[in-house]
């Protein structure tokens, strides 16, 4: 919970000595509250002040890093609804590897996941973690699985192993890779010692809110802070409610034991159910989900949902401003122009495609704004569109000399024609959904 300037002032020496570089303690307190100064600038701060300010600056949900050089960062969220600000650290997607699957299968699975990436709106989407569960007898199987991941992948690892000796040796292999250890039973003294010795992340498991609070409280008292919570639920409805209660407690009540990222191992009878549960838990607050199985279509769907939910609502996603071919356009094909707001691009390109024609879609740089917003801001007017058309040398790419503009900016047609000698401007429909009928009724070339 943030302290006000006045709260901080009460903790300062109130001597106005100026040693911190600010003339008065009050002014220094104000700077601290705005996070423009640090308490260490004051050589006379008491231990009490340090403790109070330290706790106040702790984020409501801790940032936890899983992995080595390319660690996945999860947590540090500040809101319950994305429209309040944004969600910061997208849900990590972990693929489960079971030691009972055998070496050959594991190798092919690791390589497959490692080699799978799909591009969407300029982002490369991939899975983030491997979850290794030791469900065979031999300790060697577990250690082999860990080595296979280490050899073939840079992704972070979560270890789930009931055999303490195997677990310790496994952690030793990953000692520079900061794994997370999944505790199936209540955390014991051994676990605390292990977590301290290797500075790893601990995943606490429990099935009731109260007991989870007690366990996390105990871990905090022992000085452990890199925690992830696995609150088991009997069904997805209970799970969603738990997640709301956990996040609300952390953000609104400043309830520290719940101020950690959440994880769930999703179980389902079919891939379709698996996808449904995973989708809901991505929306409602899981920071890591573990998939017992997967296929490309399932990962692609979840990646897309995750990208949608974790997009900053205040920052529109942009596509690269350039000419996009729709279908297989030739030099004589029609030319459409729109802005580089991703949603606008998707809808317009989709409707041109639906119309069955091939065309060139000129996506002008409008700082990622939609047509009307960009027009109102002067980013999508005759002059700017003409400049873009000239900059990309469209005249060298196509023979067509007609350009279709969105119906909502019919008023720019005069200016655009003036700024683009030799071109005829055609006013298209206001709604993209009318493009298919529009192309049938108007001669575009």
């Amino acid at each position, binding site marked *: 919970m943030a302290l006000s300037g006045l709260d901080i002032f009460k903790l300062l020496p109130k001597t106005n000595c100026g040693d911190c570089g600010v003339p008065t303690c009050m002014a220094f307190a104000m700077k601290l509250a705005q996070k423009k100064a640090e308490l260490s600038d004051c050589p006379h701060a008491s231990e009490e002040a340090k403790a109070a300010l330290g706790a106040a600056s702790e984020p409501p949900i801790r940032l936890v890093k899983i992995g080595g050089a390319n660690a996945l960062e999860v947590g540090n969220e500040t809101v319950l*609804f*994305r*429209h309040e600000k944004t969600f910061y650290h997208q849900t990590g997607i972990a693929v489960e590897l079971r030691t009972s699957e055998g070496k050959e299968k594991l190798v092919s699975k690791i390589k497959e996941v490692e080699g*799978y*990436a*799909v*591009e*969407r709106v300029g982002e490369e989407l991939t899975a983030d973690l491997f979850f290794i569960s030791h469900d065979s007898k031999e300790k060697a199987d577990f250690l082999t699985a860990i080595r296979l991941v280490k050899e073939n992948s840079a992704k972070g690892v979560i270890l789930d192993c009931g055999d303490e000796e195997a677990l310790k040796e496994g952690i030793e292999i990953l000692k520079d890779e900061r794994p997370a250890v999944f505790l199936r039973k209540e955390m014991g003294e051994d676990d605390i010692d292990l977590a301290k010795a290797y500075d790893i992340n601990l995943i606490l498991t429990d099935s009731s*809110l109260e007991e989870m*609070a007690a366990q996390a409280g105990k871990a905090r008292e022992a000085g452990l802070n890199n925690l992830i919570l696995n609150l088991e*639920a*009997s*069904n*997805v*409805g*209970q799970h*969603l*409610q738990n997640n*709301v*209660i956990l996040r*609300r*407690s952390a953000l*609104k*009540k400043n*309830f*520290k*034991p719940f101020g950690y990222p959440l994880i769930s191992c999703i179980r389902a009878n*079919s*891939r*379709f*159910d698996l*996808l*449904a*549960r995973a*989708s*809901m838990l991505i*929306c*409602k607050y899981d920071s890591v989900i573990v998939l017992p199985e997967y*296929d*490309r*279509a*399932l990962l*692609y*769907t979840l990646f*897309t*949902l995750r*990208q*949608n*939910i974790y*997009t900053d*609502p205040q920052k529109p996603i942009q596509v690269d401003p350039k000419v996009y071919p729709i279908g297989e356009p030739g030099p004589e094909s029609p030319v459409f122009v729109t802005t580089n707001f991703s*949603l606008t691009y*998707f*809808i317009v390109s*989709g409707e041109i*495609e639906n119309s069955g024609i091939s065309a060139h879609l000129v996506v002008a740089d409008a700082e990622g704004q939609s047509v009307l917003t960009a027009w109102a801001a002067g980013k999508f007017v005759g002059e700017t569109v003409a400049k873009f058309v000239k900059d990309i040398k469209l005249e060298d790419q196509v023979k067509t000399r007609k350009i279709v503009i969105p119906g909502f900016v019919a008023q720019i047609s005069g200016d655009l024609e003036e700024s683009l000698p030799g071109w005829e401007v055609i006013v298209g429909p206001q*709604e993209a*959904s009318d493009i298919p*009928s529009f192309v*049938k009724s108007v001669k575009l070339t």
Partner: protein
Amino acid sequence: MTFEIPRETNTGKVVEVTIGATAEQGGSRSHTVTIGGATALSFHFFEGEHPHRPVVAMEVFDKAPEKHLEALKEYFGGVLDKPGEMARKCVEEYGAELISVRLEGTHPEKGNKSAEEAAETVKEVLESVKVPLIITGHSHFEKINEVMKKVCEAAEGENCLINYVETDNYKTIAAACIAYGHTLVAQTPIDVNLAKQLNILLTDMDFPAERIVMDPLTGTLGYGLEYTYSIMERIRNDGLAGDKMLAFPMLVTPGYESFKIKETWASEKDYPQWGGLKERAAYWEIATATSLLLTGAELLIMYHPRAVEVVKKMIAETFESGKRG
């Protein structure tokens, strides 16, 4: 630190809307469907009442958009262009709780079927199934006004959900709903204020509040879902906080929107990174529908039978957890 469940109570309540009419009520449906009534956010059973489960409707067509329904052919074979038979299949085999009859074929550029033909299609579906109906139109104002007037009259007393009116075209259809006893969808383009404004316009013409369902316009996964998702969360938050003009049940259309986009019909051969089409077509609709359920969607119009099955299962599962507590 002792732990206490942080409960929040709301002053508002989502309006309860009933669709369909039985013989005693002047219609011919075997039962009615009621949605809305919640006093807390979706699935927040720990802090409010949720008297009615969200329901799943399936859609039939007066003119099937076959090009994009490749993934559905396996389930519907030859009945995609036979609305009556398709409706029966949806209800009896795939568990549809309502049927939406989409009258796209009446659009002047998409077949220009007459209002009389539309009314015949609706009657055919009314006879073939006994669940409540949704009648879904399009945005050609002049034509849809004519079609909906005729359809409202032909289905008098059935309390169909007439889908939809917009801010620039609501009076004729709303009047027909009042005259012939139907419920209405108010559609606005992904915007809280526009949604509120249309609801005010409707109630100002004495349209009964308990007969309004809102459609905030669905963007499917990867094509604007995040906008719909957040607008719906804001609408529901405001509605529960006491804004009566935003406290209506919400309709979403994951089926229609998903089956417009490439991800549900492009082959794996052309897009190897996207994985198998057979699963992908259902996955896409499931992810769209389940995420919107969390924002407060009460009525979902869906296409893929596998997606319908899964979404109904998730609704049942979340409500099961509500009973316990």
